[in-house]
């Protein structure tokens, strides 16, 4: 029958699309650091198994549909009564369970590995970078070096970078696909991850979590440098870059697109958005640009209420006050 031949044709087409796909460089398959490599290995492992599943199902499908299709010469064939087969059903329950196990073990392994400094880099001194996402820019603070950049980050090669992520506004997802997977940056809490770049090079980083009108522009560059270049860069910045003031910083947090900026100090001096009790840096009035406007609410903990004192005076302050624990705030939900 004609239509069946079409089905076969379509199935044959799928790998072709696959091949054309390979021409564009799939960054996920070209890892540039150990963290990304861990994930790529896992993906390749899963791909092999999934290909097996696809091959089995597609061949069975093709065979059955072809063999048992209605033809002019089998119109008097009456199919048998058949209700199932325990043996077969056990087989196709057991094999998928085995495949799931085969996928689970490396997945769990990778999940635990990705929380730590990558293997082989444990004794290298990590560099900490605080990442603060805002609408619609990325702010990188280097507390140890005392500098701050916007929309780009330089890092030394072969060194674990300890990213501490938070947000001054909406929720973002911090992602440098060539170096590793992503993680959310959320206001008033902190998430963290380690990334390492094998070699000097420029990598694209972006926000992958939709956060409004300016979302598409939330890209940044990560430039991995040799240690000499990196140290030189730090020295240069300290000598030439201006100091960031609190007023300038508030301006910076407003919903805008900015180019690259560099400062010779960090905003952590006056606010750490990861702290649950930090002030809220929201500006609803600046988001009125479309449609019928509703009411907004004055919040006591807003940064424009300079006089309110947010120091917590309740009975439960001990556990809440240190913000270290907030990355784990969500555990179990």
């Amino acid at each position, binding site marked *: 029958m004609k239509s069946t031949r079409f089905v076969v044709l379509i199935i044959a087409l799928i790998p072709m699309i696959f091949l054309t796909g390979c021409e564009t460089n799939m960054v996920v398959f070209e890892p540039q650091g150990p963290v990304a490599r861990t994930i790529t290995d896992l993906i390749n492992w899963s791909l092999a198994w999934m290909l097996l599943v696809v091959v089995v199902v597609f061949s069975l499908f093709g065979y059955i549909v072809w063999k048992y299709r209605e033809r002019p010469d089998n119109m008097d064939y009456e199919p048998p009564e058949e209700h199932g087969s325990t043996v077969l059903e056990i087989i196709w329950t057991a094999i998928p369970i085995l495949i799931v196990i085969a996928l689970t073990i490396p997945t769990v392994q990778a999940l635990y590995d990705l929380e730590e400094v990558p293997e082989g880099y444990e004794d290298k001194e990590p560099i900490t970078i605080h990442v603060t996402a805002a609408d619609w820019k990325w702010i990188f603070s280097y507390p140890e070096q005392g500098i701050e950049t916007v929309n780009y980050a330089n890092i030394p090669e072969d060194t674990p970078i300890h990213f501490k992520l938070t947000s001054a506004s909406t929720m973002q997802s911090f992602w440098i696909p060539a170096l590793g997977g992503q993680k959310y940056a959320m206001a008033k809490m902190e998430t963290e991850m380690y990334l390492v770049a094998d070699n000097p090079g420029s990598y694209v980083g972006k926000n992958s979590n939709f956060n409004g009108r300016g979302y598409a522009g939330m890209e940044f560059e990560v430039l991995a440098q040799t240690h000499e270049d990196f140290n030189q860069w730090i020295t240069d910045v300290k000598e030439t870059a201006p100091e960031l003031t609190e007023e300038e910083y508030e301006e910076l947090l407003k919903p805008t697109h900015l180019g690259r900026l560099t400062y010779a100090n960090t905003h952590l001096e006056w606010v750490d958005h990861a702290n649950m*009790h930090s002030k809220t840096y929201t500006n609803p009035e600046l988001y009125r640009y479309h449609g019928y406007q509703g009411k907004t*609410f004055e919040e*006591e*903990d807003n940064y424009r209420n300079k006089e309110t004192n*947010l*120091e*917590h*005076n*309740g*009975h*439960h302050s001990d556990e*809440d006050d240190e913000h270290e624990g907030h990355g784990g705030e969500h555990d179990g*939900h």
Partner: protein
Amino acid sequence: MSANVNTSLPLEYQSGQSRMNILGFWIFLGAEIALFATLFGVYAVLSGRYAGGPTHQDIIMIREVMIQTILLLTSSFTCGLAIFEMRRGNKNELIMWLVITLLLGAGFLYMEINEFIHYVHIGASMQTSAFLSSLFVLLGTHGAHVTFGIGWAILVIIQLIKRGLTSVTARKVFIIGLYWHFLDVVWIFIFTFVYLKGLVL
């Protein structure tokens, strides 16, 4: 749809449609359980987030809450008596106990509204903090259910007076009874997890 009547069963179960309505209502209560469970979950997550505002100990008035609890528990008991009288076919006693149930329920509501007013007076409104938002919405949802139940029961009482005890009115009373007991159970959870726990912790 045919009548499908079975007179050996209690009045409220006699017609096929009534049996379906009662089963449907049980399933509805299942949905209500999911609803309140979600609200309790939200409360559990947010109850420590005072945002500099008042805490449990600052606002809870345990004496009033005890009285509310007693009112509502008693009303559940009188509601049971109402169903008991219905099974015995005593319409007037049934109505009497229903009215008493509603009065107790109204007393509960009156106290709860006062409690809310008091909270707002001492600066603990729904807008103050995540803790208070979740507290108000949990209590408020329960209170709204009680209000709704009272209004609904009044309608059923009117129908009882107009039409007497028929298989339809009996089914309506029975369903109200289920609803009322359910609200009582929810309150017991609120009492334990909001008030007692709030005082202890």
